[in-house]
């Protein structure tokens, strides 16, 4: 995003809308720190500017800058997945896709959320650490996969490493038998990054909404919250 400094009246109304504090005053007008900017578009969509000085430059859709846009602006659609937002269906369609079967656990790590954001080199620390421990079956339909130069070792393409994104979701599947080791590896990796991440675990229920992996979670160093996303199981294939 950019601000037309000829048009800007320096009212500062846009500053508080930026999730990354990338808008600042200089010489009496507002400017955007392009290195910090996620290209999420929140400042423009807020329609808060009284003189329409905020605008999007064309190169926001030019690679590798475009990576910021596709991963930070939920109103865009990823070319790879045809899904708006960051492009994952995870548990939301599991009753139809059967992506996570009984005996398997979907692991999703959202790097940079909430609020902090991340460079892709921080994400690479986690993917390479996971891959080294054998957890390298990264979800191919997740747009992050397309940013990797070598998914087997979790390495990203060199040109995207410095890009700063609001969030990146790493998804992979491990077996229930491997979950305890996976959680231990992930906990160790949490000490190596200069940002935050959230984790979620996806699993099929047993009858009566019994959670199959509850014992493993209880033994882990992670503290689950009381909220969850639940697929109620009424979808079916029709294509």
């Amino acid at each position, binding site marked *: 995003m950019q601000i037309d400094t000829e048009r800007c009246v320096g009212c500062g109304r846009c500053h508080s809308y930026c999730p990354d504090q990338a808008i600042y005053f200089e010489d009496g007008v507002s400017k955007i720190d392009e290195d910090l900017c996620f290209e999420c578009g929140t400042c423009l969509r807020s329609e808060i500017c009284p003189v329409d000085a905020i605008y999007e430059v064309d190169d926001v859709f030019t690679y590798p800058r475009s990576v910021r846009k596709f991963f930070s602006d939920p109103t865009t659609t990823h070319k790879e997945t045809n899904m708006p937002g960051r492009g994952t269906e995870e*548990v939301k369609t599991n009753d139809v896709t059967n992506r996570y079967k009984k005996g398997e656990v979907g692991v999703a790590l959202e790097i940079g959320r909430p609020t902090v954001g991340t460079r892709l080199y921080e994400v690479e620390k986690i993917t390479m650490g996971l891959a080294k421990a054998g957890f390298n079956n990264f979800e191919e339909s997740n747009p992050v996969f397309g940013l990797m130069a070598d998914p087997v070792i979790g390495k990203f393409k060199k040109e995207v490493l410095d890009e700063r994104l609001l969030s990146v979701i790493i998804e992979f599947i491990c077996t229930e038998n491997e979950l305890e080791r996976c959680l231990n590896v992930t906990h160790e990796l949490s000490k190596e990054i200069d940002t935050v991440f959230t984790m979620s675990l996806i699993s099929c229920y047993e009858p009566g909404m019994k959670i199959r992996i509850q014992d493993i979670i209880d033994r882990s160093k992670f503290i689950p*919250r009381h909220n969850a*996303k639940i*697929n109620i199981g009424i*979808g079916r294939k029709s294509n």
Partner: protein
Amino acid sequence: MTHTLHREGSDESLKDDYLLLITPAMKFNDKGAAGKIKKLIDIVFDVGPTNYGCYEKGQNILSGIDVQIIKDATKDNSRIRCVFDSKEKFKEVIKRIVKADLGLSVAVTGLQSSIKEVLDELNIDAHSINIAMGTYGKTEKLPDEKFRMITTMCGHGMVSPDLVKDVIIKIKRKRISIKEAAIILSKPCACGIFNHERAARLLKEFIPYYSIQD
């Protein structure tokens, strides 16, 4: 954790917060999904969501878009994202969606105990779960916990902590009401899962904790 799972707060503050997500599965049931989604939009609006978002327009109903604009913009890959602020409405909308039997996947987010209670009452044995396991790493970089209880209601992180600070100052200076502040905070959330009723309750609770200087 992703999207709706980021919500933070005590069980008490999360108890009247039910999120509904209906999603066509790409390559499985997305062909011709637009017509089904429009029927489901009618059901959802007939019950009355607290908030509802439209990715195609980048806005939610609190920003001024209406149901017809949302339906006109609906495509096969569109998704329903909305929030309900009462158990009764949430139960009613799930009941009607199940009865409509349109074949699209339905996911719901909220406190596990609250969701299970509703599903049990409707005799629904759910398929799978995405468990929120919490936030890790450099957590000292996170903003104020109270601010996060509000900002994390936007599933894509579009609500800035600075905007929370800004509206608190304006409330303190009596320039806006708490209700107006909650609406201002809801607008950046394009997908419409920001629960402004909960935001108003939280702001009312938090206001005494902050002071402003001239």
